[in-house]
């Protein structure tokens, strides 16, 4: 009886995660392909998907590793690129209280897509939510890791001309910025980000650009807090 109940939750989680299977499969494949095209061994790509497990950051990291970025810069990139995840956790504080031994993994695996599914699916009332959440998180990471491995192995075995494939990262950020506009409906934060970026590009060399732009933008954000809040 118990194993039957367990498979019910696994099946429900699988059914609800099929869109993520497509998305993570394809994006994970691209990440693996990009990583090996920049000279990283396939197992580094897979290791990153296992222990970092954050799409945009992993794409960004490929270029930063190639440029031999310093540890402080890598840490800041990880924190600032993914700062939105803080807000996911804030809204799940109560829900994860009852997750017991699965809680550390649920927190580790809290990606945009997993969060979106957890907070919007309404499974059958007979389903145990705690177990369902865990399977959902685990299945999603499995898709990401398998996609990465497939892309990295494909890139290792074939001689595919990948010149320009790193534009996928720019395209990803353009799409995410457009999605943010739908939520925020104001040009001010975008203009502030653009201004800080251009200033940083003119003031410092490219390997210091990211940290400088973030610092300038944060300073501007709090300096003009009143004005930004009002629109």
């Amino acid at each position, binding site marked *: 009886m118990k194993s039957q109940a367990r498979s019910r939750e696994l099946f429900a989680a699988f059914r609800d995660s099929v869109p993520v299977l497509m998305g993570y499969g394809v994006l994970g494949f691209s990440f693996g392909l990009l990583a090996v095209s920049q000279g990283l061994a396939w197992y580094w790509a897979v290791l990153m998907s296992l222990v*970092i497990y954050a799409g945009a950051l992993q794409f960004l990291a490929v270029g930063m590793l190639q440029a031999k970025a310093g540890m402080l810069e890598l*840490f800041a990139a990880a924190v600032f*690129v993914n700062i939105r995840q803080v807000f996911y*956790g804030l809204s*799940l504080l109560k829900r994860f209280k009852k997750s017991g031994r699965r809680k550390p993994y649920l927190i580790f695996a809290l990606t945009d897509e997993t969060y979106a599914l957890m907070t919007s699916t309404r499974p059958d009332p007979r389903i145990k939510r705690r177990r369902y959440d865990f399977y959902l998180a685990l299945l999603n990471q499995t898709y990401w890791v398998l996609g990465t491995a497939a892309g990295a192995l494909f890139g290792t075995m074939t001689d595919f001309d990948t010149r320009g494939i790193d*534009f996928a990262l*720019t395209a990803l950020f353009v799409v995410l910025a457009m999605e943010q506009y739908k939520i925020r409906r104001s040009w001010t934060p975008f203009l502030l980000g653009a201004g*800080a*970026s251009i200033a940083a590009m003119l003031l410092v060399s490219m390997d210091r650009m990211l940290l400088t732009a973030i610092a300038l*933008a944060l300073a501007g954000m709090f300096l003009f807090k009143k004005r930004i809040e009002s629109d």
Partner: protein
Amino acid sequence: MIEYDSLYLAEAVAVLALGNLLTRAAPFLFFSRRKPPSVIGFVERNFPPLILTILIFYTLGGVDFTEAPYGTRELLAILATGLLHAWRGNYLLSIFGGTAFYMLLIRIL
């Protein structure tokens, strides 16, 4: 091909994993007992669009805008990505269409 130092890669991956985990775990570490401060709402609304704009510029860091073709291929590919996304609203399609278009552009222009 670039040579990577395994020790550097191991350290870098660990630092990236730690930084990322910190953003996911911070609420559970700091706010499981007390209420989060109100400034969090302000940051939540305004920081994501800001950092995404910076990242678009950052990924264009290797482009030389002072010499032909003056970054036109990148701008055209960004435009194509944006139009595709405004039209269909499917993020996978927009990213793949935009990237394929860019890969084509740098081979013909």
